[in-house]
């Protein structure tokens, strides 16, 4: 039985648990709130707030998600009180002397993490804004100042933008959540970088993946597992093409949910994994869903929910709902809703999901043959402005105009409009990378253009200072040189590589 209460002005949900006591303090802020030029700020604050706990001998953690950030602890009542009080104190007075070190720790953490399929899907679906942020590195770290962090904590880590859960007998004595006043910050509305769906892009890795955004609800959650079972049967059991197959259901603010499906592929089996994946999705789209399977999955969800209720595992999701302004529902209400799930309701979700789908192929495979439209990999037009041919590569032109910048070569154009720019990466040697809202970027190497430094200065003058992102210095070997006179057969020149890099919307560090 859940009790709604309030602790120091912060809404709280308290529920008994059969397991050890645990509690969490959640803020309605995450990667989706970060401008690309400040990417990493929430994670940095989370780390700084936890710094005072060092390597304490108990189970605590912080987590920065797409729409929520939380601090969580499991243990004795006194330890939980010390932890949550300490987090609030840490947020109130971030240990700024740790700034440089925590930035380094985050860079190391990021380098070790690698890019996931879900991150790539987020970038291609949403572009270089809000829900596309998981696809980008924490580029903001280098330039973040103590003032930036204070402004961010004041805006998001306040008592009106927080909620608390406690799985245990009640609010522990001595709990004092000293957070400043503020306002609730609703999650941003997701942007779209996909003019047509279903769409696909070549992911370049040994993974086939897919996502879709649909209405949240038990039928959607059931469909996620029905899809996993179909993919597992088809790709692993029947044909042995994949080893890891999984799907996920992520509720979002605004009553929507993100569905993700991922299957790995041996390099020599990529085409077959894509073929099998496409067939499984087609069957789902056309409502080929087994009634008995829906019943089995719904039964599993019923058991999981009941068990989660006993151990307090439902609480974090309920607190997310609270922060998103959604009703907090008790177990009976949730189970009653689960009872309304039918084969037809799951088929309806499947049809909607497939219509919205974004497919990531393995390697460089295409999926147009399966009815998926290629997601844009470049821009439709070049800006009006002055064209500068690249040194030694007259076919490659940088066009600098009043409204934006383009790089064109062959059939490809990449354009970033200054009014639709998410960030401008700035290297000390003068290189610039303009990243557009649609995730198309234009990379400018001043050494490859006549009067390069003057050109870069002119472009800098047109970009908003808030978008500038200082990047660490590059070694001399990483700075391209203008090409020597070229023999007939040669590898791509630095200018050609610059174009390729600009046209393909891959994340670059």
């Amino acid at each position: 039985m859940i009790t709604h209460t309030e602790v120091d002005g912060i809404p709280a949900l308290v529920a008994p648990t059969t397991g050890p006591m645990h509690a969490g303090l959640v803020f309605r802020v995450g990667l989706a709130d970060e401008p690309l030029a400040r990417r990493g700020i929430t994670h940095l604050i989370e780390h700084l707030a936890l710094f005072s706990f060092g390597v304490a001998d108990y189970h605590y953690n912080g987590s920065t998600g797409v729409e929520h950030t939380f601090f969580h602890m499991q243990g004795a009542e006194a330890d939980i009180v010390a932890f949550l009080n300490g987090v609030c104190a840490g947020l109130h007075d971030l240990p700024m002397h740790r700034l440089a070190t925590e930035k380094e720790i985050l860079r190391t953490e990021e380098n070790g993490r690698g890019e996931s399929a879900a991150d790539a899907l987020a970038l291609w679906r949403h572009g270089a804004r809000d829900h596309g942020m998981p696809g980008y590195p924490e580029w903001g770290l280098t330039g973040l100042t103590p003032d930036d962090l204070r402004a961010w904590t004041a805006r998001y880590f306040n008592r009106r933008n927080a909620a608390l859960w406690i799985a245990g007998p009640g609010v522990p004595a001595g709990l004092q959540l000293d957070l400043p006043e503020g306002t609730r910050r609703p999650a941003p509305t997701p942007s779209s970088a996909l003019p047509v769906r279903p769409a696909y892009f070549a992911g370049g890795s040994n993974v086939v993946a897919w996502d879709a955004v649909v209405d949240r609800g038990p039928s959607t959650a059931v469909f996620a597992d029905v899809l996993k079972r179909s993919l597992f049967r088809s790709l692993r059991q029947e044909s042995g093409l994949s080893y890891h197959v999984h799907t996920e259901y992520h509720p979002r603010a605004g009553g929507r949910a993100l569905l993700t499906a991922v299957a790995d592929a041996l390099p020599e089996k990529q085409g077959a994994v894509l073929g099998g994946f496409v067939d499984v999705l087609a069957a789902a789209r056309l409502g080929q869903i087994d009634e008995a399977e829906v019943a089995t999955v719904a039964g599993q969800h019923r058991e999981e929910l009941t068990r989660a209720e006993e151990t307090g595992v439902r609480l974090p999701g309920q607190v997310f709902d609270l922060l998103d302004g959604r009703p907090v529902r008790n177990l009976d209400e949730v189970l009653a809703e689960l009872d309304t799930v039918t084969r037809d309701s799951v088929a309806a979700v499947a049809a909607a999901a497939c219509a919205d789908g974004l497919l990531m192929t393995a390697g460089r495979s295409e999926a147009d043959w399966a009815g998926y439209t290629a997601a844009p990999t470049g821009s439709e037009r070049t800006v009006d402005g002055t064209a500068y041919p690249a040194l030694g590569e007259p076919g490659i032109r940088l066009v600098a105009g009043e409204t934006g910048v383009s790089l064109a070569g062959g059939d490809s154009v990449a354009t970033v409009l200054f009014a639709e720019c998410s960030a401008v990466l700035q290297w000390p040697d003068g290189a610039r990378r303009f990243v557009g809202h649609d995730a198309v970027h234009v990379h400018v190497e001043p050494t490859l253009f006549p009067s390069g430094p003057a050109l870069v200065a002119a472009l800098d003058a047109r970009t908003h200072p808030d978008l500038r992102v200082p990047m660490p210095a590059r070694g001399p070997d990483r700075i391209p040189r203008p090409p020597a006179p070229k023999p007939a057969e040669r590898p791509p020149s630095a200018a050609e590589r610059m174009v390729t890099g600009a046209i393909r919307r891959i994340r670059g560090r």
Partner: protein
Amino acid sequence: MLPAMLPRQSNLDPAAAYPKITDLRAALDAGDWPACRELLDASEQAERTYLITAVSDEKGLEDFLRGVLRGDPGDGTAGALLGRHLTEAAWDIRTRVRAEHVSREQFVAFRAGLAEAERVLVDAAARSPHDPAVWTARLVTARGLRLGLPEIRRRYGRLAEIDPHHLPGQQQVLQSLCTKWYGDAALTYEFAKEAAAAAPAGAPNPVLLAEAYLEHSDEVTDLDRVRAELREAAMRSVWHPDFRRTHGWVRTMSTFAMAFSLLNDQEAASSLFRALGKLGSRWPWEYLGDPAATIEKFRARAGGDT
């Protein structure tokens, strides 16, 4: 009288030996889909796929079959035939010449046509996952769309689960395994031998060995061994007492005849020409030029002066 009916010229029309094709074409011409279904549903699985392939070049099928599918999206037979028809249309744009003689515009239109066919077949496979004609048609689109051998093998795996000896599908796999597409002679032979050995006695499937030889005849050096292998294949197939003169039998025998002719096994070739009488097949003779004239030339060389 048609030139094909003149004495000493084989009749190359597959319907000559197998009137069901004529019946099916008549039903299609009349727009009588229930009659088409009745005829096809009563056929054996491989025969049904054979018939669907045989009539897929009929003109004006697209609108008719799309109408059928609008009425019953789950009609796998209509899906397979429409997919096959669109594939034929795409191949007509590409033409059957080697890739270096195909223009860029032709390739773009070819790919677009195949993608159109494949989309019909994706849906047909989703709704009728156990239809061998659909999976056979998808083996053709997979090859043209360059989806690669792993995907072709996956599709064949789905087909073989339904019918492990589905010759029309096996012939499509064999084409993909050839040097001219994604494989080589060794892969082609390996597949042909396995499929031939697995088929029941008297079945047409050992013809795959003749096809493997014809596709790679310029790479074969050990002629005696190949001849012996092919004679053994014929013993299990066209020379077996259980060999049936049903759908595709003319092409099967005609293919063996051409392989024996090229291997200079005149005795074997002659016996097959005699069995064929006035009947023949365009494929695979068209590899050597005008099929009717080529057949006559090799028939004369074999001494099969019937």
